[in-house]
């Protein structure tokens, strides 16, 4: 592990979608890093830009969307500059692989499982059909699929949802990648299957020492599996840091709200708590802190631009109040002018 160079760095990523209703600013300057062997959880509501950010990493943003700013570096090499666009095609599927939300539609319905695993091996590892089949069987065993030989000849519609997601994971692991991006890998599955898939993921992560980005709405999953967590809101990261510490001591009012809104099994008498209001319109995002319209501690300073401010070792938050109260302002020009709380 070289602490100086993280495996993946995303810096000020700007992604816009050009629609009839206007320009949707799906990602408004997202920055995060993933270290070697680390699991980063990205949480946030639907539409907060989680998926867009990781699809940008994979070079999968397509029309009407566009990457319009910022940089993504994998092992120090850019994936978005002109040379990077070529580089990303070599890297994806081989060094970075992705597990998608819906295993029902993510596998090609008219190819057998075997073909879909071996084609990746043949392409990236230049393997022949025979060895590739053997390796495919190994991979299916690795993800705990019984009777792997039989499965190779089956089509996706002949497998259950959980089984298909295991196949997706097997394909993702095929070329021994260094980073796996799992985009809500359990959302479309039954609750019992969800637990199995997550367990499999964390087990593989530990065994193979890969880095993982796990996108989810489920804070419980993040607490259980992730080393670090990034909370996204309205196309920006609003809080990022060590998972345990963020959960123990959330700083941003939105993070606090999210944690409060998670029902806990210990306290069944508790009523469900929700965050008042609705997420902002990303065509016309509010100036300053995007959460301010819903925030119960809103101050005048919140209307100004907020930057991600460090508030301790490996912890950053994008909140005016927090920046005022806890640490000296990082950008005096932007903070400081407002009234002291």
């Amino acid at each position, binding site marked *: 592990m070289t602490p100086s160079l993280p495996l993946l760095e995303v810096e000020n990523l700007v992604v816009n979608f050009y629609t009839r209703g206007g320009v949707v600013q799906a990602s408004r300057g997202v920055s995060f890093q993933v270290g070697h062997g680390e699991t980063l959880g990205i949480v946030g509501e639907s539409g907060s830009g989680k998926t867009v950010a990781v699809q940008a990493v994979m070079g999968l943003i397509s029309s009407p969307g566009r990457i319009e700013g910022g940089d993504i570096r994998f092992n120090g090499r850019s994936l978005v500059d002109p040379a990077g666009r070529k580089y990303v095609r070599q890297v*994806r599927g081989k060094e970075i692989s992705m597990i998608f939300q819906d295993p029902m539609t993510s596998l090609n319905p008219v190819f057998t499982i075997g073909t879909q695993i071996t084609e990746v091996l043949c392409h990236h590892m230049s393997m022949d059909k025979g060895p590739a089949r053997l390796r495919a069987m190994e991979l299916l065993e690795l993800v705990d699929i019984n009777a792997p030989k039989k499965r190779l000849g089956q089509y996706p519609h002949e497998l259950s949802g959980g089984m298909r997601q295991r196949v997706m994971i097997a394909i993702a692991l095929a070329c021994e990648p260094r980073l796996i991006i799992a985009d809500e890998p359990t959302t479309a599955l039954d609750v019992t299957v969800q637990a199995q898939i997550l367990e499999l993921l964390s087990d593989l992560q530990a065994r193979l020492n890969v880095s993982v980005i796990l996108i989810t709405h489920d804070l419980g999953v993040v607490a259980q599996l992730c080393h670090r967590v990034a909370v996204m809101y309205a196309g920006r990261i609003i809080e990022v840091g060590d998972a345990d510490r963020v959960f123990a001591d959330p700083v941003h009012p939105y993070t606090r709200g999210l944690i409060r809104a998670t029902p806990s099994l210990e306290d069944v008498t508790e009523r469900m708590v929700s965050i008042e209001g609705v997420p902002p319109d990303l065509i016309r995002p509010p100036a300053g802190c995007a959460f301010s319209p819903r925030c119960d501690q809103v101050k005048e300073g919140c209307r100004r631009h907020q930057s991600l401010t460090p508030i301790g070792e490996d912890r950053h938050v994008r909140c005016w109040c927090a920046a005022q109260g806890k640490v000296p302002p990082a950008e005096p020009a932007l903070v400081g002018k407002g009234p002291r709380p």
Partner: protein
Amino acid sequence: MGIFIFKRLIHGLIVILGVTLIVFVVTRMVGDPVKVMLPLESTQEQRDAFKKQLGLDRPIPVQLVNFLKDIARLDFGDSLWQKRPAMEIVFEKLPLTLALTAVGVGLACVFAIPLGIISALRPGGALDRLTVFGSLLGLSMPQFWMGLLFILLFAVQLRILPTSGSATPSHIILPALTMALPTLARLVMLVRSSMIDELNQPYVKTAFARGLPFVRVVGGHALKNAGLPIMTLIGWEVIRSLAGYSVVVETVFAWPGIGLTAIQAIEREDLILIQAIVFTAAISVVLINIAMDFIYKLIDPRLKLT
């Protein structure tokens, strides 16, 4: 599988029986075959003799039974025009229509599939708009008229291609081209729209995420999924051609297939030959339909043959 073939064959029989009934009704009950076939000045004796020869003097149900027997034996009697077995004529002409259909539809596929895919890659782009407009134009021109224009251009102005008959292999070029153009237009539109649909499916994104090369994702993954509607249309075009639409092209270029023969038989009021042709067409359509179902199953494993 066995049940499937059985069901299909039963349906095929129903189709053929349906055609039988219609031809029977039209030729015997609505029209008077004798009046159609014999010259106006023929005497009553001649008419009666002719009726007897065709079995038309018997009651209608007996006629129907005899008619069905003829069909079962594939023997419709001698053509009134050529004075030889009608099925013999049909078997002589059928290969020519099959050749024309094969070359025409084949030509259409060769151009339509790549063109449709390329258009689907950038919908709304310059090439796509050109393709869409071109195929709209191709769909709008009457086929017989296109054939005549080809004759004017290639045979009269440029004098490079023969325009009528089937004497040499080069005789097939113009009729096949005329046959291909409307098919090409329909096929391009379909390939384009189904490829656009498929390229927007999640599995295409996954395939790209796996780092598979562009050609493999588009030409392998997406195209195979789009294969079902495309094969349906190709089969449909073959059926159309055999079900009588080749008549137009064959007439324009005097291509002596079953279409031209059908028109000649109609002109000469040779009902026996017409019957033979219609039944051959019906049987070909039924057989192609059954074959298509098997091709569907090959393309899409999710389909159940029922």
